[in-house]
């Protein structure tokens, strides 16, 4: 999940989200997502993205949208 944190920080810079608060809610989102997936021993990349997106929506909907769709945005 360290890669996810890096990607999210890059998106935060692009969206102009202050880095201090971004770091806090990114860490909380990733921790909550890991907790929600801890019972699953086989996890796909899509499972991880969905779990993190679900948690991010509580803090910043724009960031959640960008993270969920960044591979699809051309």
């Amino acid at each position, binding site marked *: 999940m360290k890669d996810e944190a890096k990607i999210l920080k890059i998106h935060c810079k692009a969206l102009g989200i202050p880095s201090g608060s971004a770091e806090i809610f990114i860490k909380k989102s990733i921790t909550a997502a890991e907790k929600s997936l801890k019972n699953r021993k*086989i996890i796909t990349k899509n*499972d991880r993205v*969905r779990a993190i997106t679900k948690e991010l929506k509580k803090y910043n909907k724009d960031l959640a949208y960008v993270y969920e769709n960044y591979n699809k945005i051309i």
Partner: protein
Amino acid sequence: MSMKTTTKSFNFDYIIIGSGPAGRAEALKFKKSGKNVAIVEMNKIGGAEITTYELPFTLALDFSRIYHDYTTSPVTKNTPHHFNFPTLTNYIKKEISKKSADLKSELENAGIEIIPGFAHFLDQNTIAIGDKKFTAANFVLATGSKLKPNKIPGLDHIKYLTPENVFKIRKLPRFVFVIGNTVVSKKITEFFENLGVGVIRNSKVSEVAEDRKSKIVYFTDDTGKKMVRVDTIVLATGSEPFLDYSLENAEVEYKRSGIVVNKYSRTSAKNIYAVGECANGS
């Protein structure tokens, strides 16, 4: 339902996820037509019908009604009467285990493989259970429903009972608050009232809290806002389809009301079907 037959590369022709009435019926039907079938269940065989709702509630209510009639009859009400509450809950637990074992034998005798565990989709033909993967040409989703989450302030900070564990308590409470206006909440209310427990049932709860003495419930009824102290709170506000098993990986569309299916119970994925309470519109 018409479906394509398996190729040799799959573990099974059909995997049924959920062993409730809908799942068992589908599994037995496909097995009878000569297919290679497995059924996945994360709890006891029989689903919520056996472990949570139909069977335990029937047994508990039957006993409570007999006890109520005995204690209120002009003939017997003045005779000494008591019952051991843990004996009742143990009896319910044993009956659930016995019924579940009978259903498991029925499936095994029919040649259906039972795979215990929580399944989630990796793709349209593959599920993961623990660290094992299983593949099937077709899937039938019969995952039923679960308790609807409730956002009453304070609920996260206190212990409360639900229909799943209300008959697993070891001691009869003196005063119970049942939150909900569902059939299940009414059955729970009747059960406790028949056993002589003070019960309030209300769905307009604004907040719950707990202190050293008891649990506190703030609610509104016909006469206005009230506060009451109780031993036990039971949350029975209804259920919603159980859908949290990576349906997106299998490209199965769903809404909050359930998995989207057509009139043949087929989902948006051509080889996946949904039946019972988890399907939209059922």
